[in-house]
Structure formats: structure tokens, C-alpha cells
């Protein structure tokens, strides 16, 4: 059974992947909510442009997305140098960069799920809350947010899953540095490139499958709970 136990390096890759995916999902969520709200409810110039921009990573080859990130967020990139200078946030060749790449790739999926659930919210309920004295922020917190909870869960799971599997953009943007930017897919890829790496690749593959299954189960349970609370006639 020895071949099943993971080596310390492999554990590092697993932990890093989970951390990257969790950070990508959690940091992406507020932005996703804002963009989804703007797309679902907003009537403004550039609506379709924003929509297209958000969906872009879904359509572009991941390598292209990674390269664009490298240009924009690299050490000398316009955004990357600004953030490094003023906030001390460095992306290039760091795990934070991997999280950024994963977040950008998962973002369209999350926004899509959120937008659909926001559009499904009955605006007449929000009107009713308004006549009861709630201002817009309260209406959002007490009516809209609980109603879109299933959509939030779906969006987060989709983003998490995408982040766990993200390879092309990550490896292009932050390379494949063990312990820093080597996530599960990059580790598996590395194993397949060396002689005798089959066992390691297989072990990490099974880990990937297990994490994916767990995430799906968790989402199923949470969605069921949220739906039971909604139970519309």
C-alpha cells in the first residue's frame, strides 16, 4: 500500500492547490456579485462590453489569458508594478499569481451562475420590502441575498472546481515552481514528463477525483438546504 501514500512534495502540491482555489473563490465572490448585479439589473452604456469582457477567459485559449496576465500583472506590467509598489502585492512567480490566474479563469462561470439566480429573483418581493420600510441595502441583505443563496453556492463550487483544474493560464503566468506555484495539474503534468512518474501521476489523479467528488457533494448538500428554505409553492 506504500504507493498510495503521498510524498511530502505531493502533499505540498495538494495543499497549495486547495489554498489557491479557496482564495480564488472567496476573493472572486464579492467582485462576482457586483458584476453579476450590474449585468442582471444595470442599464448602462457598455453593458454588452462588460459582459463580453467577463466571458472572455472562457473563450480565449488559457495560454492567451495567462500571457495577458503576465503582461498586465507581471513585475513590470502596468498593474503588477502599481500593486507591488503601493500595496506590496506581488503576483509573478508566487502562489498569489496562481490564485489570480485561477480566479480569472473561474470568474465567468461564477458570474454566470450568480447572474442567472439574480435574474430569477422576483423584483416584486423587493418592492414589497421597500414598502415595509427597508432601504435598498437592507432589501439586498434580507431579501435578495437569501433568495440567491443557491446561485451563490453553485457559482462558488463552479469557480472552485475550475480553479482546482486550471493549468494553462497558471503555468504561463507563474510557471511551475514546486512549493510556490506548482498546483495539482502542474504536478501531474510534471510527473508525466519524467520516467517512472506514472505512480505519482496516478496518486495525484486520485486525489483530484476525491476533491472534486467532495466539492460536488458539499454543493449538493448546501443547495438542498438552501432550496428547502425557499420552497416556493
Amino acid at each position, binding site marked *: 500500500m506504500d504507493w498510495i501514500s503521498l510524498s511530502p512534495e505531493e502533499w505540498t502540491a495538494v495543499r497549495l492547490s486547495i489554498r489557491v482555489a479557496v482564495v480564488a473563490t472567496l476573493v472572486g465572490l464579492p467582485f462576482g456579485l457586483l458584476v453579476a448585479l450590474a449585468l442582471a439589473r444595470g442599464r448602462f452604456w457598455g453593458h454588452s462590453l462588460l459582459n463580453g469582457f467577463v466571458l472572455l477567459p472562457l473563450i480565449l485559449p488559457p495560454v492567451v489569458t495567462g500571457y495577458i496576465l503576465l503582461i498586465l500583472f507581471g513585475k513590470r506590467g502596468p498593474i503588477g508594478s502599481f500593486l507591488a509598489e503601493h500595496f506590496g502585492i506581488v503576483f509573478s512567480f508566487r502562489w498569489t499569481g496562481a490564485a489570480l490566474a485561477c480566479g480569472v479563469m473561474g470568474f465567468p462561470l461564477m458570474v454566470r451562475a450568480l447572474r442567472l439566480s439574480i435574474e430569477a429573483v422576483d423584483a416584486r418581493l423587493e418592492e*414589497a*420590502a421597500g*414598502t*415595509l*420600510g*427597508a432601504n435598498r441595502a437592507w432589501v439586498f441583505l434580507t431579501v435578495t441575498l437569501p433568495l440567491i443563496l443557491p446561485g451563490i453556492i453553485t457559482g462558488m463550487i463552479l469557480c472552485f472546481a475550475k480553479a482546482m483544474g486550471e493549468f494553462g493560464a497558471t503555468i504561463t503566468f507563474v510557471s511551475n515552481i514546486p512549493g510556490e506555484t506548482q498546483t495539482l495539474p502542474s504536478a501531474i503534468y510534471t510527473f508525466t514528463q519524467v520516467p517512472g512518474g506514472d505512480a505519482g501521476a496516478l496518486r495525484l489523479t486520485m486525489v483530484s477525483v476525491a476533491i472534486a467528488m467532495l466539492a460536488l457533494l458539499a454543493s449538493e448538500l448546501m443547495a438542498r438546504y438552501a432550496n428547502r428554505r*425557499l*420552497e416556493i*409553492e
Partner: protein
Amino acid sequence: MTVAVDICHRLGNFTLDAQFEATDGLVALLGRSGSGKTSIINTIAGLINPDRGRVRIDDVVLIDTVREIFVPSHRRRIGYVFQEGRLFPHPTGRQNLLYGRWFAPREAGTDFDGVVDLLGIGALLDRRPGRLSGGEKQRVAIGRALLAKPRLLLMDEPLASLDEARKAEILPYIERLREQTRVPIIYVSHSIAEVARLASTVVLVSDGKVAAVGPTAQIMHRLDLFPLTGRAEAGALIEATVERHDEQFGLTELRSHAGLWRLPRLDVPIGVRLRLRVRARDVMIARSAPSDLSALNVLSGRVSDIGSRHGAIVEVRLDCAGDVLIARLTRYSVQRLGLSQGTPVFALIKSVALDRRSLSGPIRGMSGADAAADEV
């Protein structure tokens, strides 16, 4: 309290151009569907910002397009009971009821137990809206609006989505609401029966404009308004006092200015005043006192007005010692009987024809089941 509305608003190719003032009690906005009633109360509630106009409650200006005042709906303290209830699906009945309390002023006023009692919703508090019937939902929705301590309550056809039995279940609660709370109500409806039973004042809306405003009976008795109020359901309102119960035949005797009325037994104590609605189509006219007749209600009076004589059907208004009755006759009968203003006549009304559904007053004992049985 006075609500003054003077608004102009275009919605597609429909133009709303309504002016009226409403004071205390229950004011009904009556009109056909699509006449603009809901748009008017949506404007009062702050859900529509009109192209121009003013809305004010007493001295508080809610909308004034000239002075660019528009108080957002959450700061108006106007309760709204929507046609479809619009309960929040995620919290329980209790949480729905308490939603507005967070934002309401803390002064003493409508208390939770009082409202729950008034609407009979104690058993529904722990259920989510998905498990409530249509009538129960509407009662919770009324309670939710009341507990936000509104200075005015708007009701948009709260019974329209319910079947007859559920309507009969809720009507008594709305009557109690009118009698027991101090909150003035603006009630939107297209049903004359509901309005006759509930309203103290009627604002008749037609094609986006206010066609007439006045006390309920006055509006109902105007023959010229029948095309707008709905001819088929037109009728007169009579105030009558319960005088005696005839247990042997299961009848109740009431007295009004016009004379004695006999109805199938009502579960109402003697001495109580009721408002009867007598539909024009249920009234027959005779020139001489009839004998050997099954109809129990025979009232003498004079013709006071005759409606438009175009078409086959003519409405005739009678003055019966101060009470108004309206009869719907064929033009042929009017001619044959030689009816004209002042002609002495007898009005005949079958007891079983009297519209019990729109009887109003303190009819506490009448349960929803009884009322439903009457429909058959």
C-alpha cells in the same frame, strides 16, 4: 387624514390623469381592470414616479414634480397589500410579520398580539409561506403591512386571486380591520359587491381618469354611472336594522325607511344595523299592490329617475320613503307600465335573491363555510 392625489403619467399609450382627495375610512378605487387603479396606488406607494403631479398625506408632501420632491417608498410609511400577497418565501410567517417592525417607529401602536388576533393568524406563525393557502397568505400579508405601523394602508385587489369561498373567509377580517384600526385604507377593486360591502367612499376610475367621487351609496345610485360601475351588478344600498328572527320559518326581519324586509335567517343579534345590497336585476315593479305573490318584500315608492332609454334595458330609480331602490327593466315594460318621474309603484324583491355576500356590518357569526354554502 386626507390623501390628495393629482397626477399625470404616461405608460405606453395609456395616460393616467387622476385628481381626487380621500379622507378617513375605507376609500375604494373602483373601475374595470386596466382603468389605472393600480397605477394610482403604486404612485401613492412610491413605486411609480409620475411625469408630473403632487401626492400628499395631510401636510406631508410625498411627490411634487414641480418642487422635485419624491420621497422613496421605504420612507413613506405606507402599507401595501399586494394582489398576490408577495410574502417572502424564505422566512416563516412570524418573520414575515415582523419584517417591517425593524424600520417602524417605536412608539406604541399596533401590537403584534393584537394584529395576530385581529386576523386570526396565530396558528400560521411558524409556517413558511409555501405551506399557507391563498387566503392565509393574504391575511399574513395584511398583518405584515399593519405591523410596519403605516399611516395609510393600500390594498390592491387583495381578494382577486382567491376563489369565492376564500373571499368570504377574508372579507370579515377586512371589515374588522376597517372598524378596529385607525389606519385609513385605500382599497382597489373591480367588484361592486366588495366595494358595496366595504367602502365608505368610492372613487370611480375609468380609462385613467377619475369619473366620480362620493359616498358609496351616492355613487351606486347614480344611473348615469352604470356603464362604468358595471350594469349587470348594479344595485342599491339600504341601511336596515335587525328587528326580529322568525325561528319557525328560518327568516330574519329587518326594517329600513322603505319598510319591512324578510331574509333567510341571519346570524346577527337584534338591533344591529346592516347594509343590504339589492341588485337592480332582482327588483320587479308593479303598478298596483300585488296579492297572492311569493315574493316577501313588497315596498311602495315612486319613480324618481329613469335611465337612458337606448337599447332594450332601462334602469329605473325608485324613492321608497327615503330609501333608494333601482330596478332593471326592459324598455318595453317601462312603456307598458307607463312609468315616468313620480309614478307611484310597488317594488317586489324575492327574499332569496338578496345578495348575502355583500351584506355588511358586524356579521361576526357567519363563518366562511356558511358563506360558501350560500353561493350554491
